[in-house]
Structures are given as C-alpha cells and as structure tokens.
C-alpha cells in the first residue's frame, strides 16, 4: 500500500488546517434535517415514520456537497499532475483521498445522526440499525463520489454536474439504507438489507479506485 498512509496523512492535515469544511457539511446536514419538521408539520407519527428517510437523504446531499472539492484544489495548483506521476500507484492515492473524505465528512455525519434521530422521534430499535446502515453506506458514498468528482474535473459548473452524475448512483445505497431501518421499525429481519449494503460497499471499494484513477489521468492529460 505504498503511498496510502502518506496521502491519507496529507489529506487529513489539509482538511484540519483548512478547517471549517467538515463542520460546514455537518451544519448543512443538521439544518436540512431540521427543516423537515417545519415543512411536514410537527406530528410525531409522520416524522418517526419518515425519519430514517430524511436522515439518509440529508446525509446523501451533505456528502455530495463536499464531493467536488476532492481533487479540485490539487487540480488547480498542479499537485494532481505530480500525484499522477508519482511512483505510488494512482489507484492507492485515490483510495486514500476517498478514505480521507469519509473520515472528514461521513464520520461526523454518523456521529451527528443519533441526535437528529431523537429530534425526529425515531424509535430506539431503528436508531441502532440506522447507525449500522450509515456506517456501511457512507464509505460507499465517498468511493462512488470519488469517481464522479474525477469525471467533472475541468468542467465548468462541476458542482451541478457532479450531482447529476452522482445521485442516480447513490439510489441503491439509499434504498437499502432506508429499507434496513424500516424493516427494523416493523420488527422484521433487516439483515438482508445490511448485507446488500455491505456488498455495495465492497463493490465500490473494488471498482472505484480504478475508475477514479482512470478519470484523473484523463483530466490531467
């Protein structure tokens, strides 16, 4: 795994020094979730039924919001060319970048979600399954996002383009993430949904470094 730890350390350091970015993502997540009771009315029955969906959709949007910055600054200051030319495999570097993205956005979202679950009157059984489903789902979001972020490099309005590219790919993750929580709330078995989520994560981990690395090479040519 030559280059993985070095890149991960650099990305985390950049994220910490630039500060604010991951805080912003969490704030966005919280605000979107808080808007739903205002829009749908404060009736506890409705909120607890759609609570898992609200949290998942908001997490998707928040993860996407931070996605376009994954390579953007490296692309602009020429570091991306040097990363492509470095002796470490580009696939590993891309994987490290996705891992850093998850640590700085996905993980804070997971930490914030129980509180939001309480706000939405989500039942306790659902809460635990939601945490597991987010833990399996958000790394997959970062991995899939790493491909899309590389594809829109150099495009004008990359931020808008990236949502069009990425949201259809997020749909299966959303379906099984919310499905697991709903099953738990109805006291049905939720293992199959979580296993599919795990499978999606493994699939993304296996394919995304190659796809994203190919897209990055294309972008710097």
């Amino acid at each position, binding site marked *: 795994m030559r280059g993985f730890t070095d890149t991960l350390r650099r990305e985390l350091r950049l994220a910490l020094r630039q500060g604010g970015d991951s805080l912003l993502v969490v704030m966005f997540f919280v605000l979107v979730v808080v808007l739903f009771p205002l829009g749908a009315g404060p009736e506890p029955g409705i909120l607890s039924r759609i609570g898992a969906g609200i949290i998942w959709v908001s997490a998707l949007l928040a993860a996407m919001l931070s996605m376009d910055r994954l390579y953007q600054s490296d692309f602009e*200051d*020429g*570091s991306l060319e040097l990363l492509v030319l470095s002796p470490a495999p580009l696939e590993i570097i891309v994987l490290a970048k996705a891992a850093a993205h998850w640590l700085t956005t996905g993980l804070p979202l997971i930490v914030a979600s129980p509180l939001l679950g309480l706000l939405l009157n989500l039942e306790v059984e659902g809460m635990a399954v939601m945490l597991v489903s987010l833990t399996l789902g958000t790394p997959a979001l970062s991995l899939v996002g790493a491909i899309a972020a590389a594809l829109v490099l150099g495009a004008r309005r990359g931020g808008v383009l990236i949502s069009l590219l990425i949201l259809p790919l997020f749909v299966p993750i959303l379906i099984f993430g919310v499905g697991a929580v709903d099953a738990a709330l109805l006291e049905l078995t939720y293992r199959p949904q979580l296993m599919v989520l795990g499978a999606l994560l493994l699939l993304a981990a296996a394919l995304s470094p190659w796809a994203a690395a190919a897209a990055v090479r294309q972008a710097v040519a």
Partner: protein
Amino acid sequence: MVAFSGTRLTCIRGERLVFEDLGFSVEEGTALYLTGANGSGKSSLLRIMATLLRPAAGELCWNAVDVWDDIPAHHDRTRYVGHPDGVKPVLSVGENLTFWAAISETRSEQVGQSVQTALDRVGLDRLSEMPARFLSAGQRRRLNLARLLAAPARLWLLDEPAVGLDEGSTAVLESMIASHLAKGGMAVVATHDAVPAGARRLELS
C-alpha cells in the same frame, strides 16, 4: 549506456497539429535543451516524455523498451517540474516537501534527512516551519525544484525551471543540473534563456 529516446513523435492538441515526426535522444550524463517560440510544443513534448500525454503517433523508449509498457518504472525514474508548483499553502514548507519525498521514496527512514539537505541546497532551510502561503513566487518555485533533490531520480524533465528565480537561485539551479549530469543523470530542459555552451539542443518550430 542508458538512453531515453523518442522516434517519429506526433502531438495533436485540440485538433491542432503541434509537431510531427519528431525525434530526440538523451544519454546518461547529458542534457537536452528544448527551445522554440511560445506554442511550439516544448511543454507538450515534456508532458509526452512524462507520460502525462500520449503521443498521437510515434514511440517513446527507455533502453529500447517502450515506456508505455511499464509506466510505474518510468514514474520511478522520472521527476517532472511543470509550470504550476503544486505547493499547498496551508502546509509548512517542510511538510510540502516531505510529502513528495515520502511518496516517491521507498526507504522511509531517509526521507527526513534528504528533505533537510534539499531545503538547504535551495536556500529554504530557515523557512522549513513556515506555512507555504507566505512564500513568494520564486520561493515556491525553489520548493518545487527541491523535490528533485529530496527524491532523486535518473531523468529530470524541467519545463522552464528558471521562471521567477533570482540570479542566485538560477545559479543554484544550474549547479544542480550540472551535478545531476555528473552523477550520470539525464535532463530535458525547456527554456527561453541562453543554452549552456556545448549542450545539446532541440529547436522546435
């Protein structure tokens, strides 16, 4: 004798033919200077040599083996200095260089030492702790050039390396290239300045 060569290279950028049927060769201990007007294809040729660009036609060979057959080996023996400096403003000077050295160097215990030596050589040793956002354009360029020393490699590809450098730093750069060649290294340098006497030169038009 190790040789890096290209034959019948053609480069097309945005449907415009930049150059065609171009050949070059660099041997151990020699440098090749690329000259020519703006837009004549110096940077494109260097990017082809670095494998950032694929030529539309022609072959790029290292010891008669096609470079594209073994990209990791080529990246291992090549250092490329392009126009952007790739310096992260929020990282310190030392952290910037340490990252590039660590990712290029397999023997991690030597990284700290070689980073220190490299910063010494380009005159940034006293700024090692300073965030890179306070560097001037010339200092950023020197930090970029320090990568060549912190993570040594056989082949240097330098795209107008002296841009933004003061006289003293230009002299340091020249001595860096000279000692690199003396150790059997190779260099391809695109430049608008005077080419050193006796150096090989390829004029692009």
